[in-house]
């Protein structure tokens, strides 16, 4: 493949970042917006070209005997730690990275376009586009990484872009603290990632993904059976690396930053905190999947964490009133779905279908979740509030938003023929194939998903009209915002019919998707039940929801407060670490270490004050001392001589 296109895919966004970042102050808004959108559009075109070339050109570098190959377009040395441990910056293309290129650039372009309308009146518009470009660059760099260290580099960069974008409204203290929280929590997770990388690279002497994944058993043998606390070091390394993924993908217990990250502008939530960055953890596991296969312990860990998180987030989502928070928790739940699907995937179970299904869901989820977020953005734009209590009955006022939002909800609920149905069905099938327990559990979560999504849908678009509408009539968004909604809705409608298994499988061999009828029917019924329940409760204004809330106040309160995770974290970080550890260390430093150093000075000062009276300048006293001294010396000498 020609090296120019891949380089341009990375170069255009970073150039845009520099241009908009440095020159943005001098630029008009229009200029900045056009530049940003044009840049992203070009990148998207190039990414499509690259992906298309990869999937369809039939070049033996890409597909050999029907098996899709990994291909490093380029791989240049960036930093050589040792002769073998070399960090390269490169461009790896394989099914998942090509798929991600498409997803990222598409959503990013949509968000660029959408923001043109959404952010129109915000100060710092140029800065916003600069940050979006920086994010796109980092995310693209992350997915095309040829080695785990490159991934880590861009991993950190997306973290920072996320920080900058969450804190975009930097005058709001809530936005500032949310951005700080997001960065620090993911940073903490990255610590695990880093240590995992260190452990892995210590034993394998390489960072390169191809070297690591092409022969996992060789990797296993390099560790020489070393163990730590009962588990092999490879398990440790993989679990630690996964901890990095847990942070970025908001798995329990590192999920707390994602709901708060909704303080950022809504398009940003759509791009970063729904479609692309948060799936980086899934992508990371998928990228190293062959390695995880040799250590099933790590995979089991992933599955368990995913299953718990999925259920937890779904329950919490049922009890939120902020529509962005509901979407955030649904994101957590859906990502956990992908994680579980990856965790249950085995080569011998439907040829590793879980992997394919997970990637498929990643793809469809990105589309419909971006759609939902952008729809939510349109709602917020119209109503100027995040809470559904300020909304209700909006279907008449905002038809485009209503219909696209409905499509999104149907897709996420897994209703045929929308895209979510197909991917979720594959995932559930993979889970049932592994163990019926996972399948049943996740089917229940799928039902909850349908319930809370339609709860939100009915509360926003049906229920009862808000009386404020008479003063301030809500209306559909301008075309820059509607167009992305329509495009994404269209994609969500048809994406399910893409023969995804032909393109993306864990080993590159094509897999023919077929609907598992039993699973499909079960999940459809469960989803339909969820929707029906939501409709029964929330379609018309009534007292049933309030009655339910009053029936179990403790549970509702706990779920509404997200089961007090934030309080626990607050206690640990603020009370224990900040107030107890940090303050006591600072105190220790001032009053023990520094005081010791000062006391040396004080002692010598005191001594000198005590003896400086002798240096009175009075010659008579000197003579006296001298004479006494001489007498004593003479006496001593005398005694010695005797």
């Amino acid at each position: 493949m020609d090296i120019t296109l891949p380089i341009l895919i990375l170069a255009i966004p970073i150039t845009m970042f520099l241009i908009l970042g440095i020159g943005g102050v001098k630029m008009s808004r229009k200029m900045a917006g056009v530049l940003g959108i044009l840049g992203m559009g070009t990148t998207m075109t190039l990414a499509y070209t690259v992906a298309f070339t990869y999937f369809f050109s039939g070049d033996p570098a890409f597909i050999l005997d029907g098996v899709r190959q990994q291909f490093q377009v380029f791989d240049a040395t960036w930093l050589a730690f040792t002769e073998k441990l070399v960090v390269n910056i490169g461009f790896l293309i394989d099914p998942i990275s090509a798929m991600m290129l498409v997803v990222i650039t598409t959503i990013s372009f949509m968000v660029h376009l959408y923001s043109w309308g959404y952010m129109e009146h915000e100060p710092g518009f140029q800065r916003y586009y600069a940050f979006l470009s920086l994010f796109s660059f980092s995310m693209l760099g992350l997915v095309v990484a040829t080695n785990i260290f490159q991934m880590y580099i861009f991993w950190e960069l997306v973290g920072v872009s996320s920080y900058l974008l969450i804190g975009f409204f930097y005058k709001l203290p809530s936005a500032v603290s949310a951005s700080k929280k997001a960065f620090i929590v993911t940073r903490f997770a990255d610590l695990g990632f880093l240590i995992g990388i260190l452990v892995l690279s210590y034993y394998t002497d390489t960072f390169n993904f191809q070297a690591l994944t092409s022969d996992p058993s060789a990797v296993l043998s390099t560790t020489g059976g070393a163990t730590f606390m009962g588990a092999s070091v490879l398990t440790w390394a993989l679990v630690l690396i996964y901890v990095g993924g847990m942070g970025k993908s908001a798995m329990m217990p590192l999920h707390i930053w994602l709901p708060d990250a909704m303080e950022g502008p809504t398009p940003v939530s759509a791009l970063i905190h729904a479609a692309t960055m948060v799936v980086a953890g899934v992508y990371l596991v998928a990228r190293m999947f062959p390695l995880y296969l040799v250590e099933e312990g790590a995979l089991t860990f992933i599955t368990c964490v995913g299953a718990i998180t999925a259920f937890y987030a779904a329950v919490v989502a049922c009890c939120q009133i902020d529509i962005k928070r509901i979407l955030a928790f649904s994101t957590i739940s859906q990502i956990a779905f992908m994680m579980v699907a990856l965790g249950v995937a085995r080569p011998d179970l439907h040829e590793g279908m879980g992997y394919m299904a997970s990637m498929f869901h990643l793809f469809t989820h990105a589309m419909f979740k971006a759609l939902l977020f952008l729809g939510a953005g349109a709602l917020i734009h119209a109503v100027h509030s995040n809470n559904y209590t300020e909304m209700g009955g909006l279907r008449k006022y905002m038809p485009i938003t209503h219909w696209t939002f409905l499509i999104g909800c149907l897709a996420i609920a897994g209703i045929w023929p929308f895209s979510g149905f197909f991917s979720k069905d594959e995932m559930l099938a993979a889970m049932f194939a592994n163990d019926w327990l996972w399948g049943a559990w996740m089917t229940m979560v799928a039902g909850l998903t349908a319930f809370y999504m339609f709860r939100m849908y009915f509360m926003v678009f049906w229920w009862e009209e808000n009386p404020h509408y008479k003063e301030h009539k809500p209306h559909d968004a301008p075309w820059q915002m509607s167009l992305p909604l329509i495009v994404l809705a269209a994609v969500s409608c048809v994406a399910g019919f893409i023969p995804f298994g032909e393109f993306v499988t864990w080993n590159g061999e094509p897999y023919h998707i077929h609907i598992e009828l039993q699973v499909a029917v079960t999940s459809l019924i469960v989803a339909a039940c969820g929707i029906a329940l939501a409709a029964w409760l929330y379609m018309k204004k009534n007292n049933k929801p309030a009655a339910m809330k009053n029936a179990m106040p403790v549970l509702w309160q706990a779920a509404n407060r997200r089961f007090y995770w934030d309080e626990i974290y607050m206690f640990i970080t603020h009370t224990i670490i900040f107030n107890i550890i940090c303050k006591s260390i600072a105190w220790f430093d001032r009053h023990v270490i520094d005081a010791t150093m000062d006391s040396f000075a004080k002692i010598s000062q005191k001594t000198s004050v005590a003896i400086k009276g002798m240096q009175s300048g009075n010659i008579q006293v000197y003579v006296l001392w001298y004479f006494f001294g001489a007498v004593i010396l003479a006496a001593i000498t005398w005694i010695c001589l005797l």
Partner: protein
Amino acid sequence: MDLGILWYLVPSVLMFACGVYGFVTRKNLIAILISLELMLNAADLNFVAFNRYLFPGMMEGMVFTLFAIAIAAAETAIAIAIIINIYRVVGNTDINEVTKMKF
């Protein structure tokens, strides 16, 4: 009864002790100078006595005493000049008053 060397050395020691006492206790600069002369004198007497009793054939002790007297004269002259100057500036010759140069 013979006048041995101790006969001269003992008065010299006592005179020296008097000088020390005076030097340490007097407040007046001139009085201190007087005490100094006493000590110097005691030392001179020692020179001479030792010369006479231990090396009667030589005259080093006497010569040194001569020089000492000359130097004592010089020293006294300068000291008294300084004292007079101090008196002009400070108004008296009390050693405790002369502290301007101390700091």
